[in-house]
């Protein structure tokens, strides 16, 4: 890509012989006649009792069929919808050509975690939303996400996992604070550019939200480990059980030779609703509930961590995390696993796929309801909750219609476990440890949106610690952006030092100056 603008680069790639030939094999019109394929899934009544993946992945034939639907547009708008800028038509056409390993390589040019993104990205509001099909011919988009997952899984299963090429190792030490999606994307790009990268992680496992947050049935931890192993092969070092700002400060780490940092410490603090009875036992934040099950494997009696998961489980909220929690509760044996959401299903922030999967699995949706109080038994365990019915009023700041309580509509239902999934706030540990860092009133780190650089020039930041609560792929996009601008920043710093040195006549003068 060096020396070429992105548009010229894509044009040049598109005019390569193999791409031209593929296009000539099947007319665009014939391609648009092909129906979008379905992702094979585990049967709902079976999968709601186990933790293995819901989506089973495309077969080779299904993948090639889907890849054929892509007409290889001269102006591939899909790429503009990708926060990490994957060369989408190129990898899709590699699949059509049956060159699955090459397809995986294309993905890894810009995406450190293709098997993860192929599973958890909301493609329907990104690449697939701006695909030719929905934009121009009102048909369902090419299932780019399914194809991404296919290529990544094929490569892993082939045992021929490629390790991205690393330009000359420069030995300059940089660190990521946090090993979630922002940190991993950052580490991958910095390692490719030759930096000596260390990733610090507070927990005992690498992967951040990918490990503690997203359940096995959506993203097996093993998939995350495969992608982390590639980063390790690229020379990235991982240090777990290390909280930067607590175990050692940024200043101390600078003395160990690090020249710049990327903070990707995530949105750690769960929000509660501050209603009566919320501290009864059996009431969890979604972070705690999911961490116990996903990271600590509480459902497995061989592991020491317990989890309370009863017969009547209410999950408060309508986001992806709420869906993950309620589907987890069902799998842990809940007879009633309920979503309690104060707006209607149209306003739900969760991905459509997650909502549909949850409905298929027998999750009850109590939309337009809001909890106002919890009642406990003599031991302090929650046994009932009081709900208020809501109706939708005028749109609020978010553009969604505001839920308004219906007077006198309270009623009580039995619950023995509640999971509160009403958002998170940024983790305070890093901002607390760096007093000079410019932080917003919400606790997020303020950065230059273009460079991801914070008020301290050597500190960059991305992901939920900047955004407050977003998606895996946006965090990864931030990590990549931070890597690119940190590289420019460090190189400029080096140039400044060199030009400063040039102003001296002798080495003796330099040493005198340095004192």
């Amino acid at each position, binding site marked *: 890509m060096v020396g070429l603008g992105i548009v010229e680069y894509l044009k040049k790639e598109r005019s390569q012989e193999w791409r031209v030939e593929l296009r000539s094999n099947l007319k665009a019109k014939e391609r648009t006649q092909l129906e979008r394929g379905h992702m094979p899934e585990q049967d709902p009544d079976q999968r709601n009792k186990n933790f293995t993946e819901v989506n089973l992945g495309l077969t080779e034939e299904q993948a090639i069929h889907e890849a054929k639907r892509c007409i290889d547009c001269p102006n591939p708008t899909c790429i503009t919808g990708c926060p990490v800028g994957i060369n989408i038509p190129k990898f899709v056409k590699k699949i059509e050509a049956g060159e699955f390993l090459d397809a995986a390589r294309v993905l890894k040019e810009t995406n450190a975690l293709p098997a993860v993104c192929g599973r958890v990205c909301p493609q329907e509001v990104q690449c697939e939303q701006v695909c030719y099909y929905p934009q121009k011919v009102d048909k369902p988009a090419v299932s780019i996400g399914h194809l991404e997952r296919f290529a990544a899984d094929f490569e892993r299963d082939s045992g021929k996992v490629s390790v991205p090429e690393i330009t000359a190792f420069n030995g300059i030490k940089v660190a990521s604070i946090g090993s979630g999606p922002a940190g991993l994307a950052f580490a991958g790009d910095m390692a490719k550019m030759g930096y000596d990268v260390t990733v610090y992680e507070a927990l005992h496992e690498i992967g951040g939200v990918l490990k503690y947050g997203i359940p096995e049935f959506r993203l097996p931890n093993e998939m995350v480990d495969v992608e982390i192993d590639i980063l390790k092969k690229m020379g990235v070092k991982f240090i777990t*059980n290390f909280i930067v700002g*607590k175990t050692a400060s940024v200043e101390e780490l600078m003395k160990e030779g690090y020249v710049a940092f990327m903070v990707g410490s995530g949105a750690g603090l769960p929000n509660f609703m501050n209603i009566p009875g919320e501290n009864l036992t059996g009431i969890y934040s979604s972070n705690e509930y999911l*961490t116990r099950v996903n990271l600590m494997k509480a459902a497995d009696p061989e*592991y*020491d961590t317990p989890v309370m998961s009863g017969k009547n489980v209410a999950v408060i909220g309508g986001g992806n995390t709420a869906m993950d929690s309620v589907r987890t509760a069902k799998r842990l044996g809940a007879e009633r696993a309920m979503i309690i959401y104060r707006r209607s299903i149209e306003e739900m922030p969760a991905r459509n796929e997650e909502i549909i999967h949850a409905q298929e699995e027998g999750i009850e949706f109590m939309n337009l309801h809001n909890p106002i109080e919890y009642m406990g038994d003599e031991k302090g365990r929650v046994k009932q909750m009081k709900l208020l019915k809501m109706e939708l009023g005028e749109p609020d700041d978010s553009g969604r219609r505001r839920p308004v309580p219906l007077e006198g509509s309270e009623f009580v239902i039995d619950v023995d476990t509640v999971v509160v999934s009403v958002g998170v706030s940024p983790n305070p540990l890093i901002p607390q440890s760096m007093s000079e860092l410019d932080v917003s009133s919400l606790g997020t780190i303020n950065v230059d949106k273009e460079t991801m650089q914070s008020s301290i020039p050597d500190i960059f930041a991305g992901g939920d610690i900047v955004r407050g609560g977003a998606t895996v792929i946006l965090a990864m996009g931030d990590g990549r952006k931070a890597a690119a601008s940190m590289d420019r920043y460090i190189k400029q710093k080096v140039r400044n030092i060199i030009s400063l040195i040039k102003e001296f006549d002798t080495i003796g003068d330099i040493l005198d100056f340095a004192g």
Partner: protein
Amino acid sequence: MNKIIDKEYFSDLVVKLVLEAPYIAKSRKAGHFVIVRVGERGERIPLTIAEADLEKGTITIIVQKVGVSSIKLCNLEVGDNIHDVVGPLGHPTHIEKLGTILAAGGGVGVAPLLPIVEAYKNAGNKVISVLAARQKDLIILEEQIRLHSDEVIIMTDDGSYGKKGLITEGMEEVIKREKIDEVVTVGPAIMMKYVALLTKKYKLPTVASLNTIMVDGTGMCGACRVSVGGKTKFVCVDGPEFDAHEVDFDEMMMRLASYTDEESAAYDRFINKYKKA
């Protein structure tokens, strides 16, 4: 992995472990705690740092056998590794010269109390310590506490050592004869509750260091939440020390008992396995 380099039994139930943790040894201050996980299937449990040796790069933790994880931890020997140790966590104790400090520690709560007592003493305060336990062999770290205290009073429930009686009785005797500027207390929740009631009666500012259930210990999960002054606080990132008069100890005790059933089932499984082995 953190290697255990020294181990000492204070009693059948209470063990002192010294482990390698050079970064934590350097960064820790009085009041800090660590999260420990024994084995790759272990749970994450918070433990307060009792002592640290900067030169050797070690920290000391004191563990009481109460459940499966603490028994597993106590069963580790010198040379064994603890799978995960992370910290130091929480806010350190706010130490300044105030005058006379009354330090009240119960059971293994004396372990986290030790660095606090030491820090108050080093800041130029007069420190009177009251240590309490059910019986003699559960009184720990007496010698070390004496090193940093102007006076030490020992209370045991059964009178097997020191004076017979509750910690509050020992404290009240001091409060009646001395002008106390601050009270600091660490121990079982029920003990701290009664300490708080006593000192409230005498209008003495009191700080309690809370030890709740935690998972990550970094603010992420909210398992450790307690009500302080009617507001929900997270012990891991807002504490572990709070104004004892504002803490809802009854709620804290209720939350500490969350997993009583699960814990006793796990304990039975563990003991059965242990017997078979």
